[in-house]
């Protein structure tokens, strides 16, 4: 072991991968992962899915067992918040005043929930959902026959609704926009999810304006601007996240809707890389800068960052992909649909539970939302990675094998 010390701030998807990839890439110095949460890196996606529904135990969430870090010579410094970063002295300060010197630093601080300052937001039983601790608290308020109001009809809100239905609860989802998933999908996909949630017994209210959260001590109801009052034993707010950039900003690193990094995950400081939800990076497939919130991005960008720290520059060029599980719906998304001007459907979205929506900009295929259509997802992932083109007419015809629609 040499005297170099790589310090990774944050201990989640990106951090765990970065540490593991540093060792695989031949980093011989010390590696420390410093994280605010008291637990080793764990899978966040199941929090709103199997874990909330009580189908998974917290032990099963760990991405790698504690012994992995020991064996790999990676120090986990958990339950520790980094409060200061001095790029000139090359040190970070922890909440308890401890100062840790680094030779190389990696910021994997992820994202924090966007909060709402509604009247009553501090009542018992009102939650955000980002960390394991959040869900452990939420689980104290769930149970058959209880009423839940979910504020926000994005993936996390809808997954939470589905999990709570599984638990036998009465669930209402409030969406401020005219349709759920409005920012991320085509109208057909939104309509599909609204229909299925309705069939499963969830009430969805769109164009909803929340006026206040009511209760004495604990939440009792949610009041809408139109006067409607909804009974609530629990409220979960899922209205998006913001990149955790305070440390980077205070230290004077370039920040613009995320910590600005180049294709090698380097920040504006040559000794500091960043990866995951906290970064704003360039994607060559879509030729624009992006901030993504996905495990794929956290994992793949962490690998790039680790290579960079090991002195091997490998540009980040992965295809974004994402998934979401609700009820018996397995949604897999390959690519990014933003900027589409046309949607081609394969299968029916207005009945049943399986179809794919292909997003085009002109002739160019941008992305697919595949619901219980794993072949379509796999095919598009391959096509977008290898630059194949798609024939919209064949895509729309389920009688044509999906492979025949690509050239």
């Amino acid at each position: 072991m040499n005297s170099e010390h790589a310090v990774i701030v944050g201990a989640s998807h990106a951090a765990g991968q970065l540490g593991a990839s540093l060792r695989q890439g031949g980093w011989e110095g010390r590696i420390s992962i410093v994280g605010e949460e008291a637990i080793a890196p764990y899978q966040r996606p199941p929090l709103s899915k199997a874990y909330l529904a009580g189908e998974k135990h917290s032990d099963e969430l760990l991405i790698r067992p504690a012994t992995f870090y020991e064996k790999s010579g990676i120090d986990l410094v958990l339950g520790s918040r980094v409060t200061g970063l001095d790029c000139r002295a090359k040190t970070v300060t922890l909440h308890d005043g401890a100062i840790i010197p680094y030779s190389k630093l990696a910021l994997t601080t992820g994202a924090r929930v966007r909060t709402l300052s509604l009247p009553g937001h501090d009542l018992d039983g009102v939650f955000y959902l980002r960390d394991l601790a959040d869900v452990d608290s939420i689980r104290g308020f769930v149970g058959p026959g209880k009423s839940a109001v979910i504020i926000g009809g994005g993936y996390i809100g809808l997954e939470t609704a589905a999990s709570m239905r599984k638990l036998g609860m009465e669930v209402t989802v409030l969406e401020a926009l005219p349709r759920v998933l409005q920012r991320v999908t085509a109208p057909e996909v939104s309509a599909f999810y609204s229909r299925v949630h309705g069939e499963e017994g969830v009430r969805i209210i769109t164009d909803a304006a929340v006026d206040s959260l009511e209760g004495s001590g604990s939440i009792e109801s949610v009041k809408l601007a139109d006067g409607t009052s909804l009974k609530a034993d629990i409220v979960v707010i899922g209205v998006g996240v913001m990149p955790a950039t305070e440390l980077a900003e205070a230290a004077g690193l370039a920040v613009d809707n995320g910590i600005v990094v180049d294709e090698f995950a380097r920040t504006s400081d040559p000794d500091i890389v960043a990866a995951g939800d906290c970064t704003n990076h360039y994607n060559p497939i879509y030729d624009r800068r992006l901030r993504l919130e996905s495990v794929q991005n956290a994992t793949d960008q962490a690998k790039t960052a680790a290579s960079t720290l090991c002195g091997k520059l490998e540009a980040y060029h992965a295809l974004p992909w994402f998934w979401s599980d609700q009820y018996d719906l397995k949604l897999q998304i390959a690519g990014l649909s933003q900027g589409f001007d046309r949607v081609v459907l394969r299968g029916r979205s207005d009945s049943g539970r399986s179809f794919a929506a292909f997003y085009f900009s002109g002739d160019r295929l941008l992305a697919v939302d595949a619901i219980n259509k794993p072949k379509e997802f796999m095919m598009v992932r391959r096509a977008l990675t290898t630059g194949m083109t798609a024939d919209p007419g064949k895509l729309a015809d389920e009688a044509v094998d999906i492979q025949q629609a690509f050239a």
Partner: protein
Amino acid sequence: MPSVTFISHDGREQEVHVPVGTTVMHAAIDNGVSGILADCGGACSCATCHCFVDETWTARVGGADEVEAQMLDFVIDPQPNSRLSCQITITDELDGLVVRLPASQF
């Protein structure tokens, strides 16, 4: 504890021991076996945990369900003994299982 042996595409063997109930994917990740990526953490959504079950074990391991089979059609170099390793759970009957890993996951 049951053992699982991973054989990389270039012939390197790695034997690991894992508790009953662990998936083959976790057996690899937990022990730093490279060649399995497991981006989705076992949700059967990513197909980056593809492996080939050694022919002497395929009958005991069993086949893929429909979703898994559809994803397997599109992995690199699919074979009749292809499986997604996150969908195989280790039991006492599978003690000594041998799986081979592909050169690339995608």
